[in-house]
């Protein structure tokens, strides 16, 4: 199957976006976002990852099977995280130490 090509200019645009998001996530780390800090960082990282996956790795032009397997890896990791964290946070002693401004 032919793959829709990413042009040189297109690739450079993606790189620019990636570098901008890197600067953003670094800057945002200096702001006090409390309990949302982790979520924001992960969201920005995911945006970068999707850019790399869909453009550099050509997922947007790949077959459905390939996309299913790419998704499966992520989905099952999410399952591992969810199942383990669900038990761990219920069980481990609630930490009374929190980053300044955050509540548990």
């Amino acid at each position, binding site marked *: 199957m032919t793959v829709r090509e990413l042009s040189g200019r297109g690739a450079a645009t993606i790189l620019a976006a990636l570098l901008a998001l890197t600067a953003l996530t670094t800057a945002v780390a200096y702001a006090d976002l409390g309990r949302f800090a982790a979520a924001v960082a992960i969201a920005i990282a995911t945006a970068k990852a999707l850019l790399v996956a869909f453009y550099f790795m050509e997922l947007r032009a790949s077959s459905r*099977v390939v996309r299913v*397997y790419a998704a*499966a*890896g992520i989905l*099952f990791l999410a*399952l*591992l995280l969810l*199942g*383990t964290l*669900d*038990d*761990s946070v*219920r*069980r*481990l002693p609630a930490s009374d130490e929190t980053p300044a401004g955050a509540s548990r």
Partner: protein
Amino acid sequence: MSSIASPSGSIDVAFPRLNLASWYVFVVGGVLTFATLVIGGVDTGWTFYTPYSSTYANSHVITAAAGIFVVGFSSILTAINFIATVHTMRAPGLTWMRLPLFVWSLYATSLIIVLGTPVIAITLALVAAERLFRFGIFNPALGGDPLLFQHLFWFYSHPAVYVMILPGMGVVSEVISCFSRKRVFGYRMVAFSSLAIALLGFLVWGHHMFVSGMSAFSGMIFSLLSFLVAIPSAIKVFNWTATLHRGSISFQTPMLYALGFIGLFTIGGLTGLFLAAMAVDVHVHDTYFVIAHFHYIMVGGMVMGYLGGIHYWWPKMTGRMYPESWARLAALIVFIGFNLTFFPQFVLGYLGMPRRYHAYPPEFQVLNVLSSAGASILAVGYLIPMVYLLWSLRYAPRASSNPWGAVGLEWHTPSPPPPHNFAKTPVVSDETFSYAPST
């Protein structure tokens, strides 16, 4: 010939050199694991629970972990090969819904291997790192959480048991169909059940941790999901039974093993549901009840499925026919020996005999002796095929390309098959298991 390539009508798997590489990797892993035994062994048990394995054990944990790590990668490489082969190399006309059910089961198995094995790999690597560098990730004395290890360990190790049973189920589908002269009842449901077992099997790992100190709420969720995973297995049993109904049944050796599988797997599966109920599990966890449960699945199920498959495909692989009377006798001995070995263990476990102890109270003696007697009978049942199968390689009559009158692409090649399986690429036009005369 390959169990995936030939029934798919392909000349070889997608990546033949990866196939070979995975064999060599397996040998390296096997040597490492065996070396562990030779240099002094490991005493953590196969579950490697921390912090014993990661901090306090004085045995060869790292060598053992390395061996398993390497063998795991051999599995992963083969699973990648199977997946790519089934997706991209099917013969013309061989749609997904015409694939033999054995291929479906191997596909589902590969799915599990690909998603689960990497987790045990990294977990064991972490244990090795903790031993080497004294990290404390799993050591409560240093702020670590031993249950983290258990979550990571069982996330793979539960799906692993479905890796172990799915191929056997695939064999049963093929054999039941052939020796009832009927297509498998509910082909679609059986195929999708293989996938469902693979996927649902990833949702239940916590049921190994009910008494570990895990949160009760989390336990309840895992318990509910464990009930769910029994459903696709049950669907398969119902479909096999329906296949037998009004079939033209003959009792050659492969069929004897397949029938044994259905009955014994059902007992194993039912007792699995008993264990999935937290309230019951609290009492029988770490007793012989658990041991009996999984041996009904592993031996009553998988080993019999394996023996059935060996006999079914022996003439195809070797070009020789094994002696049928001896084979039936061995199957009977295996069945009797197996049940005598493991049924008493259900009772023992329920009465409270713990597993992994070096001694037991005197009131359990009779049942233990029965079990040991059964084991020696089972051993005879295993020995007999070893003898006659080897014997058959040289002295048995040659087999035709299709001694069972079975349907399936592999039966269209000579026995044994030539190097590229098929002289020309076959074209598939019949539905799977079309035993009725075509109209």
